[in-house]
């Protein structure tokens, strides 16, 4: 019944306001905001599309947007089993940075960061990308050395990065405890000042709205249940709302990558694990920078609304339950209190989980697959939010040209056969 109603409302009328600006806000205030148009339509599923993108998370919506915008594809659908942005895009800790160690990773994440820098304008939707800096701490001699390796690699890749002493860290983050007597004292750190956070929901909504305006059909509540494959090539997609024909299919379903791949008859090197996050009650600003710590395993930032947003590592076991085990949260909060004693009296407001698609080398898969014209973009695991624009951009390119460009090429599935993995575990620590 919701749908009926949505359809009725989906008519587009020209007098409605489409452009967002302070001016349009003021104008609409006068008419009591009655004339805003829908951010996206709720179109009916057509029987046939040139390209179907499965998964209306940030990556999928960005893919569709760039396909429509840069490759002139006209007939695209993005379909999602739930509400758009309801996957990991809607439940992550929003850390954005590009200071990865290996060249290949630097390539994709920096490409992405550059797109972030103009994204709000590009989409005409304020994604609140806030370059407040991402500071990674080192707590042991060993970590300090690892840090040098990373920082030097990042610097030589032309990406900004700055090493900080404990005292310099204290200046940026006055609430941090830099007592050298701590079990894991802050011995140093490095900051990427261009890194930061963005409003996660806005990213999904912004891409959805922009893609919709370019004619992309976004179909929600439409789970994909199978594929039609003929002679090793994709011909269509089966969904709970019926079958559709498609020339090409791009699959961007994060935690469900394994499930959807199995529908197409192959398996991926991906485990789906719970990853938890939590927010505190909102408080007045106390933390301007994003802080990450690998050896005590926690990361934290303060959102514009005032909550502290905290996360840790993934649970060890596979699960699709969007919740994890309590001990992960206990460990993370102990680490948080250890570093930030003032957190102790603040209160946890809400905790939740997402299902992350972890790859053996903690790097993503952007690849052709054993099925012709079926492409997969997944494996971002605990750290793909930051890649949203870049990932969508290169994936669109791959789908349009049936060949990966130089940024995407290293992330193909072949690497698991040949053995050239891009291992961001050891060297890069927690991949957020």
């Amino acid at each position: 019944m919701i749908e009926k109603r949505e359809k009725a409302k989906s008519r587009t009328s020209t007098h409605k306001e489409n452009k967002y600006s302070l001016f349009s806000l003021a104008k609409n205030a006068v008419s009591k905001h009655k004339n805003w148009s829908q951010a996206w339509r709720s179109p009916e599923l057509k029987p046939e599309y040139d390209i179907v993108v499965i998964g209306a998370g940030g990556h999928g919506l960005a893919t569709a947007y760039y396909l429509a915008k840069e490759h002139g594809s006209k007939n695209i659908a993005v379909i999602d089993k739930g509400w758009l942005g309801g996957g990991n895009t809607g439940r992550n800790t929003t850390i954005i940075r590009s200071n990865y160690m290996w060249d290949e990773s630097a390539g994709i994440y920096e490409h992405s960061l550059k797109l972030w820098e103009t994204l709000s304008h590009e989409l005409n939707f304020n994604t609140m990308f806030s370059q407040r800096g991402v500071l990674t701490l080192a707590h042991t001699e060993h970590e300090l050395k690892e840090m040098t390796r990373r920082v030097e690699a990042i610097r030589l890749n032309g990406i900004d990065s700055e090493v900080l002493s404990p005292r310099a860290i204290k200046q940026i983050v006055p609430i941090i405890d830099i007592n050298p007597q701590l079990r894991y004292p802050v011995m140093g750190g490095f900051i990427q000042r261009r890194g930061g956070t963005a409003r996660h929901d806005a990213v999904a909504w912004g891409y959805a709205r922009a893609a919709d305006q370019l004619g992309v059909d976004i179909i929600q509540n439409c789970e994909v249940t199978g594929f039609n494959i003929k002679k090793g090539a994709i011909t269509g997609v089966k969904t709970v709302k019926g079958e559709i024909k498609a020339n090409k299919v791009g699959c961007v379903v994060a935690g469900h990558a394994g499930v959807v791949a199995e529908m197409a008859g192959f398996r991926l090197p991906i485990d789906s694990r719970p990853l938890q996050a939590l927010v505190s009650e909102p408080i007045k600003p106390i933390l301007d920078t994003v802080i990450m710590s690998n050896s005590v395993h926690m990361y934290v930032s303060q959102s514009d609304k005032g909550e502290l947003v905290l996360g840790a590592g993934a649970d060890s076991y596979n699960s699709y339950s969007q919740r994890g085990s309590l001990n992960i949260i206990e460990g993370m909060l102990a680490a948080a209190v250890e570093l930030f004693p003032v957190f102790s009296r603040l209160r946890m407001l809400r905790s939740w989980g997402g299902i992350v698609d972890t790859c053996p080398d903690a790097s993503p898969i952007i690849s052709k697959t054993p099925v012709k014209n079926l492409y997969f973009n997944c494996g971002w695991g605990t750290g793909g939010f930051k890649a949203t624009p870049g990932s969508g951009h290169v994936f669109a390119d791959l789908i349009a040209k049936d060949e990966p460009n130089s940024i995407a090429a290293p992330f193909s599935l072949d690497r698991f056969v040949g053995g050239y993995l891009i291992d961001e575990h050891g060297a890069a620590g927690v991949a957020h």
Partner: protein
Amino acid sequence: MLHIECPWCGFRDDAEFHYGGEAHITRPDPSTTLTDEKFSEYLFSKTNTKGLLLERWCHRSGCRRWFNVLRNTITNEILEVYPVTEKPSSKQGKETYERNWRRKSPPKKTPKTDEVK
């Protein structure tokens, strides 16, 4: 916190266990003409089922024994616990085992199983 029944020590919190991923993967013999593709399948391909999954756990903080578990990855309900060298015996376990794409490689036989009491 999952409550997992160690076949020896009884029910314990998941924090005491080490997760071993998918069960019943047969290690290929490297001396045969094993292609990179086949080897990669053994090394990396995952049965990442949404639903019933046969998997391995080790009671790390307890008796240090490995054992197999049939678990629903949606609800985290555990339906069967069985020895690491055997096949599942419950109905759902058998079905899950039969459905598995790796079933062609049967689990190895072990000469004997130790038993207490």
